[in-house]
């Protein structure tokens, strides 16, 4: 399918600007003007609508396909959360209004949402305060680690290292480095959890803290987590909870109760704000009392008279980490979702997420090697090692699933498992859908035994098959106009 620029027809218009009603023409001197007009495409509105509608139809999405992408929590995004985000009283609100003199009065509804979201997040996680500002999960990680650094600085601690298990998401080590730390990586035992013996050897007074996903990226809840917290706290280190897998423990366990000092929530995972093809997300960060003084500014407070205000007066704050108050329209969706679900709904969410994952685990291990054969939480990790011996790799199985109309699970992550296939069905999928998935996975296994070579040019039902990624990186073409010049 052609690019929108290639479809351009000189003279077509997609939108008509109003005529100027002011009778004055603004002039700028030619030295300040751009040389050539910006070469945007010339298309009618229908041309543009057809183009992007056709593009949308080349995507798999939760609305159209089963999407068990492990570690991403691709649950259904309820439609009403989209409609509340469009309410003009929220959508058209300028972020600088509350910064005007007595301007907070103009944004009481929005501040109410932020304030109550903080209360909800505290109740769910057992932490004492939250900032809604981080704009994605990884941004939350950075905010959290910056607060850890501020804590150590204030106490005069000489800290150099952050401990990260080898099964962690890549964002953890990348974040710690960007915040100015070095990494100590801890291997995984054969039971799928962090090796405590090695951990013990590695802990020194120079350890600033640990970043831990719990349940971890193997879908396993480490029962020793409070022991780990104690070991880290013993050197005045801090425990960072990566909230990527929070969907597994809602109402069953709270990070704040088991020794974590700071955490982020991925609203686009647990609180079902849409993933948008790769964002926008939102990554609220929570802390216990130890870290409260360092939260970013501004913070939303409730005054004695019941009205809400922004407070910037926190002398130990790490400062501004985003332009405003967070990705408000996403926090609003999450708030609406939490209000609808309530306490019981959240518990049910986790119950069904864990039930579905264990069902997949039990059924699929008949044909695929289970990475760690034990009860799992919200996701189950397999290895396609047996199939790989027959020449059919995790990637081949992924491509086979695409032809069956299913988005593949996460493959080749976590890095700790060879040929890994990580399945996270989420609570919104029905047993029947999961049964279809298992059937497809079994069929792929059958084919790996009878006809392994057919995998190599799959998928066949998609507009394209197996892009040449080496060529993409070698003959770089990332800009249509750059190619022309």
């Amino acid at each position: 399918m052609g690019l929108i620029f290639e479809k351009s027809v000189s003279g077509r218009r997609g939108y008509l600007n109003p005529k100027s009603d002011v009778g004055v023409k603004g002039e700028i001197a030619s030295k300040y003007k751009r040389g050539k007009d910006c070469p945007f495409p010339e298309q009618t509105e229908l041309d543009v609508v057809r183009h992007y509608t056709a593009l949308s139809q080349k995507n798999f999405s939760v609305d159209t396909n089963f999407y068990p992408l492990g570690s991403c929590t691709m649950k259904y995004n309820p439609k009403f959360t989209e409609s509340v985000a469009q309410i003009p009283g929220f959508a058209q609100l300028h972020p600088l209004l509350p910064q005007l003199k007595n301007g907070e009065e103009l944004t009481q509804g929005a501040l109410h949402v932020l304030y109550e979201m903080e209360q909800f997040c505290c109740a769910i996680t057992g932490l004492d305060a939250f900032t809604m500002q981080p704009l994605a999960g990884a941004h939350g990680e950075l905010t959290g680690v910056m607060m850890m650094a501020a804590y150590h600085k204030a106490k005069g601690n000489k800290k150099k290292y952050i401990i990260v298990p080898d099964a962690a998401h890549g964002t953890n080590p990348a974040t710690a480095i960007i915040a100015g730390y070095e990494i100590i990586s801890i291997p995984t035992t054969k039971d799928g959890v962090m090796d405590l013996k090695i951990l013990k050897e590695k802990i020194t007074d120079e350890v600033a803290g640990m970043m831990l996903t719990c349940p971890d990226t193997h879908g396993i809840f480490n029962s020793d987590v409070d022991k780990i917290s104690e070991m880290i706290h013993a050197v005045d280190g801090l425990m960072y909870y990566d909230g990527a897998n929070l969907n597994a423990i809602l109402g069953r366990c709270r990070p704040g109760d088991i020794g974590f000092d700071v955490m982020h929530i991925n609203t686009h995972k647990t609180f079902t704000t849409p993933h948008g093809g790769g964002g926008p997300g939102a990554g609220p960060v929570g802390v216990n009392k130890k870290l409260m003084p360092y939260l970013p500014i501004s913070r939303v407070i409730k005054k004695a008279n019941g009205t809400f205000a922004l407070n910037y007066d926190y002398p130990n704050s790490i400062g501004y980490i985003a332009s405003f108050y967070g990705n408000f329209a996403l926090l609003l969706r999450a708030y609406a979702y939490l209000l609808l679900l309530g306490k019981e709904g959240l518990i049910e969410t986790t119950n069904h997420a864990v039930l579905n994952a264990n069902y997949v685990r039990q059924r699929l291990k008949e044909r695929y090697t289970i990475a760690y054969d034990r009860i799992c939480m919200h996701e189950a990790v397999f290895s396609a090692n047996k199939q790989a011996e027959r020449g059919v790799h995790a990637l081949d199985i992924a491509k086979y699933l695409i032809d069956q109309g299913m988005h593949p699970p996460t493959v080749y992550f976590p890095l700790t498992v060879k040929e890994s296939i990580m399945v996270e069905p989420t609570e919104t999928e029905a047993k029947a859908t999961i049964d279809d998935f298992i059937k497809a996975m079994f069929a792929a296994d059958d084919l790996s035994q009878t006809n392994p070579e057919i995998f190599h040019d799959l998928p066949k039902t998609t507009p394209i098959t197996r892009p040449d990624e080496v060529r993409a990186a070698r003959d770089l073409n990332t800009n249509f106009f750059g190619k022309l010049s």
Partner: protein
Amino acid sequence: MIPYIANTNKEVQEMLKIIGVNSIDDLFVDIKPHQRPKSFNLPEGKSELEVVSHLKQLAAKNATNLIPFIGGGYYDHYIPAAVSALVSRGEFYTAYTPYQPECAQGTLQALYEFQSSICALTSMEVANASLYDGGTALYEAAMMAIRITGRRKIIMDGGVSPIYRKILKSYTINLNIEFHESPVIHGQSDRKSILPLLDKDTAAVILQNPNFFGAIDDHSDIIEKAHELGILAIESVYPISLGLIKTPGEMGADIVTGEGQSLGLPLNFGGPYLGFMATRKEYIRKMPGRIVGETVDMHGRRCFVNTLQAREQHIRREKATSNICTNVSLCALQSVIFMSLLGKEGFKELAQLNLDKTEFAKQTLSKIKGVEVKRSSPTFNEFTIHLPIDASIVVEAMLKKGFAAGFPLGRYYPGMENYMIVAVTEKRTKEEIINYSRELEEVLNNERVMVSTRSS
């Protein structure tokens, strides 16, 4: 039972039987009794109808009928209906990062078109597939310049958004990076104060055009001087202005970032917005964020993939160029649809319309006694005015008359309490501008009366 869970009790029992446990509770054996929540105090669930009514009530507590003359980098532009109609397609917004290119060509091609549009807009060679917002994009640009040059000093022009400056400072406080700011003036970049700050230890000079005070500049001379010293020039831009004004590419900038909110995104009380970044081809491997590239599939068909992933955290982990993972793909899509609808002519006209309305507003406001419109430099759609009294008091009085009259500079610049910036987009009508001017005059008259009463 909530409406987003499918399994019935009967199915649950079947599944538990297959798993080999008696109850759902048995699946949580790894969470030990002492690890269970001390409390879980959340409200009871509600129906969709109740939640929507509640939120409509809350929305009504926000001031939505103010006529906005407030900008500061975030503007009230019209968004054609087709933009939201297309972005609301579930195939776009309920998909995730295109890890499987065969079933994500829609997102991937749209992001390639976005990157191309950003390059066209800024006259740069390469762009990434988006960053969180304009402020964090500028921080990423500063870090990128430090990686490229191996130097650790950053010079920032006083015209850069004060919000962006605060963000950069918080992120770099522990990183052994030296910051110097040229003093603030409300016109163009002050060459006399910036140029002496540039030296061979400087990684980058950060400029903004139009700057926070609305001034348009041609930074070619500063950039040329920077290049002589091996310094990279970073330009933060406001995309709508680039329909008319000299592009950062034409000025020789090395890294360009900006806030893309004005390209079809609602104001949304601060987010989600759209950070973008463009640079020279030679620096592409040092650029953070996802990059989509064109290639061919095994049958030679054109297609698109995430490329140069070896820069990214999910491959490189602690050696990545940034920790960024999720960015703002959907906002990028929104903006490329906006740019495509406006098209070559429409985009230029839109910029001219903003300029015309602003010129009219400047002329109208300068007729008010006590209002001094700063004309030391050309402006685009925002400009600085000086008032005889504290601007925050004037703005507060104007709110009561139904106008968000501007943004007082005293909030971020001590000593500039009597100044404010006023933004005029294509949405403001002649009538609104005249009414604004009349009400402003009245507010100033009232204040003058009050001041003279107080002093007599």
